[in-house]
């Protein structure tokens, strides 16, 4: 076995970590107050502090869409949003989409159409689709494709994602 022994370390004057700021987030209908450093993204606050791991980290650069959540009903990349910017905001994550154990029509449609494989991009796809439906802009398959292109699915379930969104659109449209 190789065993390096030089463990001596020079410790210069300490750099202190940033001061934490109190933030109140309304997450999935629940008020959560937490102290976060200014450099903490909403994504890391959700995952590491509130243990809501349904919101995924796929790139941390706003390139993949896996971290999509709804803020005041609009879809947002949580990795490009600092938690301190969202004091008082109402946030819905994948965990808050289903109520009392009943799946949201999009969640059911994703299962019905096998609109995922590994499942990692899925919460972001579903939250993004919920935002898309609320926007009311997408009517055709081509419009869904275009407006869902911020959410990458490396498993390549895109045609099934479009079919699932169309199903949910129909189901939710007929309800209203």
């Amino acid at each position, binding site marked *: *076995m190789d065993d390096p022994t030089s463990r001596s*370390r020079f410790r210069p004057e300490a*750099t202190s970590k940033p001061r934490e700021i109190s933030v109140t987030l309304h997450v999935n209908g629940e008020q959560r107050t937490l102290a976060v*450093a200014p450099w903490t993204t909403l994504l890391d606050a959700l995952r590491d502090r509130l243990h809501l791991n349904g919101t995924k980290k796929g790139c941390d650069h706003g390139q993949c869409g896996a971290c999509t959540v709804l803020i005041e009903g609009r879809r947002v990349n949580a990795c490009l949003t600092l938690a301190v910017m969202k004091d008082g905001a109402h946030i819905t994550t994948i965990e808050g989409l289903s109520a009392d154990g009943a799946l949201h029509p999009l969640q059911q449609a994703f299962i019905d159409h*096998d609109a995922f*494989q590994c*499942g990692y991009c899925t919460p972001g796809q579903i939250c993004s689709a919920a935002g898309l439906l609320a926007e009311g802009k997408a009517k055709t398959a081509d419009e*869904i494709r275009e407006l869902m292109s911020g959410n990458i699915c*490396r498993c390549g379930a895109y045609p099934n994602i479009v079919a699932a969104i169309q199903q949910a659109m129909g189901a939710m449209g007929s309800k209203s």
Partner: protein
Amino acid sequence: MTYIGTPTPRVDGRAKVTGSAQYAGEFTAPDLVYGSVVTSTIAKGRIARIDASQALAVEGVLDVLTHENRPKMASGDKGYNDEVAPTGSPFRPLFDDKIKFNGQPIALVLAEEWEISRFAATLVQVDYDAETHSTDLHTRIDKAYMVEKPDKPRGNAAKAHAAAAVRHEAEYYIPIEHHNPMELFASTVTWNDGGKLTVFDKTQGVQNVQRYICGIFGLKPDDVRVMSPFVGGAFGSGLRPQYQVVLAVQGALQLKRAVRLVLTRDQMYGLGYRPATIERVAIAARNDGTLDAITHEAIAMTSQYEEFSRNDTSWSALLYKSANAKYEHKLARLDVPTPSDMRAPGAATGVYALECAMDELAVALKLDPVELRLRCYSDRDQNNDLPYTSKQLKECYRKGAEAFGWAKRTPEPRSMRDGTDLVGWGMATGVWEALQMPMGNRIVLTANGHAEVSCATSDIGTGTYTIMAQVASDALGLPIDNVTVKLGDSSLPHSQVEGGSWTAASVAYAITTTADEIRRELLALAQKMPGSPLAGLKHDDVVLSDGMIVAKAAASRSVPLADAMRHGGVERIEREKLSEFKEDNKHARNTHSAIFVEVKVDEQLGVIRVTRAVNAVAAGRIINTKTAASQIMGSVVWGIGMALHEETLVDHAFGRVMNANIAEYHVPVNADVHDIKVIFVEEPDSTVNPLGIKGVGEIGIVGVAAAVANAVYHATGKRVRDLPITIDKILG
């Protein structure tokens, strides 16, 4: 109820759509520490000095591990071996001061919070003694060498080429491609009392990782448990243990605390990848479209420390009837990390070249591309002169062409239009192996009619959970809701890594053979009941169905399994078995496909869209028509990416990846993908294995890039042989 062959929804679907499925970087512990990696900025040389003092001075930083102070590691290559490792000397993270590639991990910062570790990692100062490096395959072609003796040539290819009526020869190129699974590579290691480790890892082989970690750190198998209940995509990148698991274990051993290490997207470009490969194909044909000779030579890149070599070339000699054939595979060593398997390794690249060459030959012969392939169709494996267990490729051509509307194609390039777009129709053949591996399985059946089925395999999105539940439900005669599947845990019965499209066939066989033993036990119990309606019957005379043991000859002769177990005073029956396939050297085992693609090309802008694709696949019995179709669909998307988008760009001056992110490394997005139709051609096969399963993870991508390239030629008259086919190559 029969589940095999049905579109059963994923049994883990609910967990995935509600966000409750937990991936490697999401497990936690009260004493969790966060890690961040520092990577090298040179491609070759050594670390002259590494100074972590500034990083250590940051409040919340617990330690910085480098080659100078990391925990003990094995000193020989053997300690770093893994079951998928190629020949060579495996990479050892933080072992010494040597730099073998740009992006190599050289330090691990451990801190109370992730943001602190990330910040502190930027403060680690490194001085290098750099050496001249080489990362460009094109400059090392003359240094390429043969690693394995090539397959035996047939006849005399050179002579046949010289005498050929029609000859096509060309060079094709596939760049470096990265898997880019959506989940970042991650490991969470918990340090438990007495130093036992639980490792949550992003891997396709929990037992492979367990052996690897034990080998490196001199740990006992009982002290290391590796788990991966959910894997956010892998496509081959998780076959070998990756460096983050070594670093996370180093951190946990050092601090005696739990450590989570999640790589960044750009750091994942320092892991494995599809190697850049130059493919030279020559085909000699007669005027009637039969072939006289095929020659295929591949030159691929590998690292300085391992020889990663996959079969690119012998597909050419396998697929089409040709009396003469010759192939060789060479490697060029570069100062890069070792390449790795990536969806259909060898075939995605080798068959791309072959199928483009066949298209070029069809043009030269003025033959329809499908017709050319039918004229040199082979019912036998040409390499080994063996019959196939089954081969319904002709049916793939027929059904695929029919569904696509191929008959309406006009052969001349630029002859089809849709408004201002040029329209191109192209096709290609796909081929992959039907592999199978020894696999363990445990079934626990309880008298309440519930079964737990377990195996250390993984589900990387392929649908393993679901097909295991389906096969067990059918074999045990239980509703699928009464079956629980456990996988992704090194403490479960034996499994090879999950790859090569072998998991479905292997795990299904393991479940049915284990269920056979359960049935034997149940029958014995039932026959002990007074006046048993199953008296005198043998094990093969009964089946399990609807919670009962039923005589095959007369359904009225049956005993509920709960009655049989309770009468015998048995609450649970547990059986574990390692199932191995009988060796069969008399048959070739392959899957096949025919892929048809429509592209539309904007004549002014050169923008290419794949508007339609039909992939007709012959892969034996399909266990789940829903999840299998998703696999093929996803593979077609991969083929589109390979053809039009994907390319890892290296700045050879620095030997460093320039587009190490998921915005500049282009993968297909929703708007890039249109209609994809998947057809499974009937292919009954009682020879390959009892259930006739061949696997579908790979076959769907093979040939797709060629079909797209051939369609682009048909649309534009422009033959682009180096991938990806980007706008500049169309307009240039």
